[in-house]
């Protein structure tokens, strides 16, 4: 489990990017980490990995501070940053050098993922396009079989067919012993993958709920008379709204609508999810 308590961070003393973040993320889920630009999603992922030190508050990975850089923490955690530098060697070579840090690394699985994503593991990484490099790194990270996989904007740079391959690979990756955290603005790319939604704003964690909890309490789609509307948008299909789910029936979750509702009307959303 990943937990943070009253976590705050700023790159300069004047500027605060994360403010009072208290949350927990459990195994068995694919968590979606959402928030407007500059809110500190990437910073939060870096703090979870222990790459940076919080200004105040704490991060715990299965109860251990990641800043201690313990073997049992680091061998269970991989982050794929949005942008990264890899050495100019082939993926196969990179894996041979790096995999010993990850005891469950599976070379055969990595080659399989490479094939599914259409990337050659035998050519030098710098000869690949950015998108190809991302695919290579995804193949490596999945093959490490870590229990906590953190992905920062993983679909940026992926071509259209690779996005669906990516979804299938991740759907097959998560189980009770593993979690995936995806920070993204491209909600449409990962909507069907996420089963827990975390929304951050300047005040902290606005929402941390499973998709089934969300659909139990909120209704998405066209409104009927008497609906308690929290947020609505005019679209070509008519007014699409987030309202209080009073019928008890499930509607089709729209993360985009949920996000806009949370950003524009945080108090209403907080009130609905804080009453347990």
């Amino acid at each position: 489990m990943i937990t943070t308590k009253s976590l705050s961070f700023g790159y300069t003393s004047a500027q605060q990017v994360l403010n009072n973040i208290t949350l927990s993320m459990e195994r068995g889920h694919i968590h979606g980490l959402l928030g407007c630009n500059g809110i500190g999603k990437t910073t939060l992922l870096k703090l979870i990995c222990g790459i940076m030190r919080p200004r105040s508050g704490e991060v715990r990975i299965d109860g251990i501070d990641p800043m201690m850089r313990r073997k049992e923490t680091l061998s269970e955690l991989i982050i794929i940053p949005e942008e990264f530098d890899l050495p100019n060697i082939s993926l196969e070579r990179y894996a041979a050098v790096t995999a010993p840090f990850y005891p469950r690394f599976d070379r055969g699985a990595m080659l399989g993922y490479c094939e599914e994503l259409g990337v050659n593991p035998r050519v030098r990484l710098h000869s690949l396009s950015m998108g190809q490099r991302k695919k290579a790194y995804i193949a490596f990270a999945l093959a490490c079989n870590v229990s906590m996989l953190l992905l920062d904007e993983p679909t940026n740079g992926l071509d259209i067919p690779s996005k669906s391959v990516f979804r299938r690979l991740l759907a097959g990756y998560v189980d009770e012993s593993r979690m995936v955290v995806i920070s993204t603005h491209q909600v449409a790319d990962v909507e069907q993958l996420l089963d827990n939604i975390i929304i951050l704003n300047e005040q902290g964690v606005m929402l941390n709920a499973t998709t089934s909890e969300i659909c139990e309490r909120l209704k998405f789609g066209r409104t009927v008379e008497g609906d308690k509307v929290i947020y609505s948008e005019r679209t070509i299909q008519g007014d699409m709204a987030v309202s209080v789910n009073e019928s008890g029936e499930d509607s089709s979750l729209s993360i985009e609508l949920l996000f806009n509702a949370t950003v524009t009307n945080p108090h209403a959303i907080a009130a609905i999810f804080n009453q347990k």
Partner: protein
Amino acid sequence: MQFSDDKPIWRQIYELIAMRILSGEWREQERIVSVREMAQEVGVNPNTVMRSYERLEADGIIFNRRGIGFYVSLGAVAHIRDIERSKFISEELPKLVERLELLGLKIEVHE
């Protein structure tokens, strides 16, 4: 797989499985793919797929043999047909009738 946004994804996977049974692709009393395999096939969170399976089980369409997997129930085809028929009559037919009236079309039923 492409999903429509007019109903929950778990419901669409429920219907996909029901259609595979109805079409005979998956036969009664035979084992169906695991939740994990289905999740991978459609690229959907396995917890969401689990919900579809649980609902199919609650509706008597599939059953769980602990530790082995899910099987198509005996009589599932007739059962799905019943469910689909009543859904057609209560949900789709009124919309169809409304549309026919809107377009000034009439249907004649011959016995």
